[in-house]
């Protein structure tokens, strides 16, 4: 079946390294698809990918990325998804960064200040309040569906939010999802800590991290959504450059995660991360000074990141929040952003291509790994 798809270009290598994501064109209907290729031989425990495949197959919702097909090719699993033009929100954040890196390199000689300007431009252009709203709404609809089916996603983060060419938003990455229904009964809470989730701990809710007897429920996804919104809006992860133990501590004492705009500068600034960033780059403060989020948006985020999950809002309440209400039909990406993202994506593309060309001249070699003949022994003697 793999021969029905021609790989066009590589989008990324996921954080778990053994998975490569490609844009591919189907030779049967000439349409584009996103193909995730995971080499099972690199994994000692393929549990996450198997869970992702079976969970996704049991789910059907307009805002959840559907798995169209999956098959085995040599030692690889190919998962076929609809074509996601802009990739994940993480890709978009990276693309914006790549755009500025490339442009500032060109201008470096003419303008020395450019380097400093870059960081605050990057923050300014990430996602604005209006463009985040449709993303959040789609993700909430997806989570509302999952929660009504008693499933906890456990890995809501920019990596798992995808945007296609028409601006439709999908939630993906069901590899860490877990059901509250177990052994034929509906549990009110779970206690199991997601294994192999190290790369995403920053997004986990305090109650999951705490691993105590109280456990966690569907509301932990809301917390992760809150952290994700902050990252998209601030342009920087709330716990950037932070040791895991410190992150845990801050979450448990209920450190005020939130949106960075001028209001946090006027109040007695208890936000140490802003001050850390600011000490490295004074322009950040100036940028934050210029930014102003609406009261309802800040209130919405505050409801998501309430430390005690009993008082945290659920999907249903958030969908009826005033921030969700003023729903003008709009795309989640403005035209200006799209042009920047597109250019940034091209830059990223170049980088990936160069790397690929250095190592391997052709995709077919990625697909068929060179064989490693076992040393010394040519054959056994059975006669």
């Amino acid at each position, binding site marked *: 079946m793999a021969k029905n798809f021609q790989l066009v270009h590589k989008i990324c290598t996921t954080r778990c390294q053994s998975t490569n994501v490609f844009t591919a064109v189907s030779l049967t209907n000439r349409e584009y698809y996103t193909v995730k290729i995971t080499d099972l*031989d690199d994994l000692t425990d393929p549990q996450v990918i198997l869970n992702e495949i*079976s969970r996704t197959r049991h789910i059907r919702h307009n805002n959840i990325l559907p798995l169209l097909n999956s098959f*085995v090719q*040599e030692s690889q*699993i190919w998962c076929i998804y609809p074509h996601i033009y802009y990739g994940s929100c993480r890709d978009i954040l990276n693309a914006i960064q790549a755009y500025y890196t490339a442009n500032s390199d060109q201008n470096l000689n003419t303008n020395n200040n450019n380097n400093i300007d870059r960081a605050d431009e990057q923050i300014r252009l990430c996602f604005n309040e209006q463009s985040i709203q449709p993303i959040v709404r789609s993700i909430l609809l997806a989570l509302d569906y999952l929660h009504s089916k008693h499933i906890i996603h456990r890995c809501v983060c920019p990596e798992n939010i995808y945007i296609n060419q028409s601006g439709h938003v999908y939630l993906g990455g069901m590899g860490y999802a877990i059901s509250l229904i177990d052994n*034929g*009964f509906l549990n009110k809470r779970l206690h199991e800590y997601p294994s192999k989730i190290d790369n995403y701990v920053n997004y986990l809710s305090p109650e999951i991290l705490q691993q105590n007897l109280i456990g966690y429920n569907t509301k932990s996804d809301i917390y992760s959504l809150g952290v994700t919104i902050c990252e998209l809006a601030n342009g920087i992860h709330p716990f950037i450059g932070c040791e895991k133990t410190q992150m845990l501590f801050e979450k448990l004492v209920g450190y005020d995660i939130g949106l960075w705009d001028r209001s946090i500068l006027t109040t007695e600034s208890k936000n140490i991360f802003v001050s850390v960033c600011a000490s490295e780059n004074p322009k950040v403060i100036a940028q934050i000074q210029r930014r102003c989020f609406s009261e309802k948006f800040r209130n919405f985020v505050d409801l998501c990141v309430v430390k005690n999950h009993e008082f945290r809002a659920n999907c249903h309440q958030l969908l009826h929040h005033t921030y969700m209400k003023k729903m003008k039909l709009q795309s989640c990406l403005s035209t200006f952003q799209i042009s920047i993202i597109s250019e940034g994506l091209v830059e990223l593309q170049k980088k990936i291509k160069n790397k690929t060309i250095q190592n391997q001249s052709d995709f077919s070699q990625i697909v068929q790994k060179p064989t490693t003949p076992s040393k010394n022994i040519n054959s*056994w003697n059975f006669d």
Partner: protein
Amino acid sequence: MFLFGRTKTPQELVRTLKDLLLQLEKGERKYEKIAEDVTKCLSGIKNILYGTQDQDPQTEVIAQLAQEIYNSNLIKIMIDNIVRVDFEGKKDIASIFNNLLRRQIGNRSPTVDHIAGRSEILSKLISGYDCQDIALNCGMMLRECCRHEELTKLIINSDQFYKFFEYVELSTFDIASDAFLTFRDLLTKHKTLNAAFLEQNYDKFFENYQKLLHSDNYVTRRQSLKLLGELLLDRYNFTVMTRYISNPDNLKLMMNMLREKSRNIQFEAFHVFKVFVANPNKPKPVTDILLRNKEKLIEFLSNFHSDRSEDEQFNDEKAYLIKQIKELREV
């Protein structure tokens, strides 16, 4: 016709669902309307059985519901028509089925008895793997059945059991791997039953199993090799293991798999190969093969996965095998 204004009693819910499903089966006209009502009924029954986030399940109501389900033969009717129910409804049928199977009254499991008396239900579930739309739902229900010895026995002793050797190689990966999960549960959950089954059906079973080990499909090869190792090393399967490791053809297969290009397959093969070498009563043909390859094996094993230095057990076993092979003498 469907009054959801007032809450239905469990009996009414079951009867309505039964009527609707039978209408679906006949293929009456207002198909979509009926299918919609079926989904509502199913989710109503599911909520009674599982409760919701706000309300715990009530034992009394569940007892009435279950009794009505047994009396009206609803389980069979649901399974017969699962293919006609919509996507969410199919999942609800599986959830209802699985919850009912867990029901216990004292030492009795009434649903297990109910299904054991109607083995055509099990047969329907197995052939569910033939149909993409319902394969995964049927798989979930079959694995729940596997928890009960009585039902497992019915399944592995049916001719249909051998269909699993085809299902685990289906080209759609998610269905194939689901089928393998079920296959594995069938062979490992009930030790005494499984051991007796493997002994009685040794030839037929391993003839089929050999095909899985030779499959072109990497995943099938890797999974079946791993399961083989688990089966042979289980002390309940001692007789089966003894028989397996006295056959020189099996040894040849494992030695070839040690040299496969995939590291994971090499590693799994090692765990089967070691049993051949560690066997204190090796038959002559097995010893002969080992002797003929003595030097090669020692050299091969000395370099085998030498980067797994942190895996103490593996290194101990490897050293033990090398020692055993070095000490091998003609009999």
